[in-house]
């Protein structure tokens, strides 16, 4: 059966919330994030005209747009809005898969309102969001997740775009590969070198070729080039990792600076674990140097790490591995993966942590 999937994506989410809450910011180029260091978490459409993008280092953003206004993030407000829009989604279908605070997939093949047109549902949802939050969302409607996401991006901001079952393949064929969800900058460059520039080029390659050059994900590329994506909308998609990171005001250079920089990050991650009773087996340290070169170091225990001292010790041991320091460090992060909830561990023999 052909499914009906909607992808809802809030437009310039953090920036729009800030502009809504502070009229002085409306109509101006703003960036949510730190002005000195760090990166742009979100840019308003006014700022985007200057080429400011999210994840761009703040310094670069300021160079592109000298009148850019930096706004400190207010995550509690974003979360509140996210909750409001999720309430709206759930009125239509229980099959809601949130991707982040401002993005979600909805499977409305069967929906609670008994509506036959997914486009109509998308239009209603957009209107309800606007009414309830005064914010714009873009919606994409199609028969699978991959296309729905492409569609929501296609007419941003405040867009609504539908890719019908007979249009999917043609749509993908003309699409440059760098716009494919799941193809990053590096992969796109690699594909370009192989003469793959758009969906049609990608479609010419067989599955074995793609798997050979791109690994397991090659199979996914093979399918999406044909507009095939059978991933279900999974409302219970669980968290794969938890982590915290910090971009420092000044590059860290000494051991003492690095250690005191890492400490609060470890504490944050642990606080989450203790609160949720979810613990991880693998600890990963992320280090971004002043030239943005990023490395990760990780270590896995045999069973989830539930001992704070041990968690701390391993984190610091991972930090040890980056000495001697080749250059200053601008960002440190710690994340835990291979997560397990202690509720699932009752009756389980615990394992020594090495």
């Amino acid at each position, binding site marked *: 059966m052909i499914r009906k999937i909607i992808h809802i994506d809030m437009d310039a989410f953090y920036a729009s919330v800030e502009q809504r809450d502070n009229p002085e910011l409306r109509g101006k180029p703003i960036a949510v994030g730190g002005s000195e260091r760090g990166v742009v978490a979100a840019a308003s459409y006014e700022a985007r005209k200057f080429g400011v993008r999210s994840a761009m280092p703040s310094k670069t953003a300021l160079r592109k747009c000298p009148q850019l206004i930096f706004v400190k993030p207010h995550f509690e407000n974003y979360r509140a809005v996210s909750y409001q829009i999720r309430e709206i989604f759930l009125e239509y279908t229980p099959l809601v898969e949130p991707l982040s605070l401002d993005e979600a997939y909805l499977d409305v093949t069967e929906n609670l309102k008994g509506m036959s047109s997914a486009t109509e549902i998308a239009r209603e949802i957009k209107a309800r969001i606007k009414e309830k939050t005064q914010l714009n969302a873009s919606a994409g409607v199609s028969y699978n997740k991959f296309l729905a996401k492409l569609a929501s991006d296609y007419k941003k901001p405040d867009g609504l775009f539908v890719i019908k079952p007979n249009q999917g393949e043609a749509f993908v064929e003309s699409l440059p590969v760098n716009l494919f969800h799941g193809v990053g900058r590096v992969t796109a460059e690699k594909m370009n070198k192989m003469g793959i520039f758009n969906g049609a080029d990608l479609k010419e390659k067989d599955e074995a070729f793609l798997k050979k050059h791109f690994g397991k994900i090659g199979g996914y590329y093979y399918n999406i080039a044909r507009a095939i994506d059978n991933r279900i909308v999974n409302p219970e998609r669980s968290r794969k990792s938890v982590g915290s990171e910090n971009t420092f005001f000044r590059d860290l250079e000494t051991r003492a600076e690095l250690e005191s920089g890492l400490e609060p990050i470890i504490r944050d991650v642990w606080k989450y674990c203790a609160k949720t009773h979810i613990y991880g087996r693998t600890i990963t340290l992320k280090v971004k140097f002043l030239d943005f070169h990023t490395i990760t170091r990780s270590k896995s225990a045999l069973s989830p790490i539930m001992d704070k001292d041990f968690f701390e010790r391993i984190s610091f041991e991972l930090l040890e591995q980056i000495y001697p320091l080749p250059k200053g460090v601008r960002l440190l992060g710690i994340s835990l993966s291979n997560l397990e*909830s*202690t509720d699932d561990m*009752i*009756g389980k023999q*615990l394992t020594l942590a*090495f």
Partner: protein
Amino acid sequence: MKFVVSSSVLLKQLSAVNGVIANNPIMPILENFLFQLDQNQLTVTASDSQTVMITTLEVESNESGAIAVPARLLLDTLRGLPEQPITFKVDSETFGTEIISENGRYKLSGENSIDFPKVPQVAKSLSVQLPADVLASAIGNTIFAVSNDDLRPAMTGVYVQLSAEYTNFVATDGHRLIRYRRSDVKSDYESTMIIPRKALNLLKSSLPSDDTTVTADFSQSNAFFSFNNIRMICRLIDERFPDYENAIPQNNPNVMTINRMELLSSLRRISIYSNKTTHQIRLKLSTNELIISAEDLDYSNEANERLICDYEGEEMEIGFNAKFLVEMLGNLSARMISLEMSVPNRAGLIIPSEKEESEDILMLVMPVMLNSYA
């Protein structure tokens, strides 16, 4: 080549080294004993290519030569013979081997001795001498906790840490860890190695139970043990042993001290009622009282016992695998032991209250999760 030997003397020596021979060796030649005769000295070698055991015995002969003889056939023959001198006659062309007893002849087809793999030579880099009973005790106290998990090869042997003050013998299967320390075994040079379980099991069964001196030589990749007329060579496990010191919890404010045998017998009784796969039992500790309980929900069996102990610390409940506790406590000989704990999801430490001279034992066991703790 020909020699005469007492059937029982030969049987005894062959039995001492026979354990090395694998059931279905990759190289069929390793189903044989290698006999090397040099006048009245017969050297017998058995090997599984990782471990080699060699013994020498005196025979009557003035010849020399070598032959590989099928181990199983020869042992079965000798076991059935009453004690008597027997004669071995080897045809060096056909490798046919004939055993002549008082009232019969047995013909075995041997194999060319040059097909038998070469035994690694001692490339000594470190040498330690220790009494056989000390080595046997170090093996006995650790080997039961060695892992069977071939995915973690480092843990399939006993980790030996030699230093100028003491020697540690460490074994772990990830659920428990034993550190057996001897202050009477020392080395001027610090060194570490992992000795595989099979070699240690073989050593354990062939070591004399007295203070006969055992010489242990270690090279980069092999260990060489020799005592009396027996030599053993084994390949060391070339892996990094887990950083076990860090796994030993340092602050354990909750300490129970209890009679070892009383605890052990109680655990044996209670574990009958525990779940047959998890062997989970529950220890409930409060001031000077220990309640051990178990239940098997599948069969609605349950049991509990109340024991008197000396307990200092906060009231707590902690779960363990009873099999682990029984095995660990059963290996100790102290009258009193203490169990030191911090929280129900961290390792418990079992430490004998009385110490033998020059011996220090630390046992660590991970709990079984009872509830969720945070």
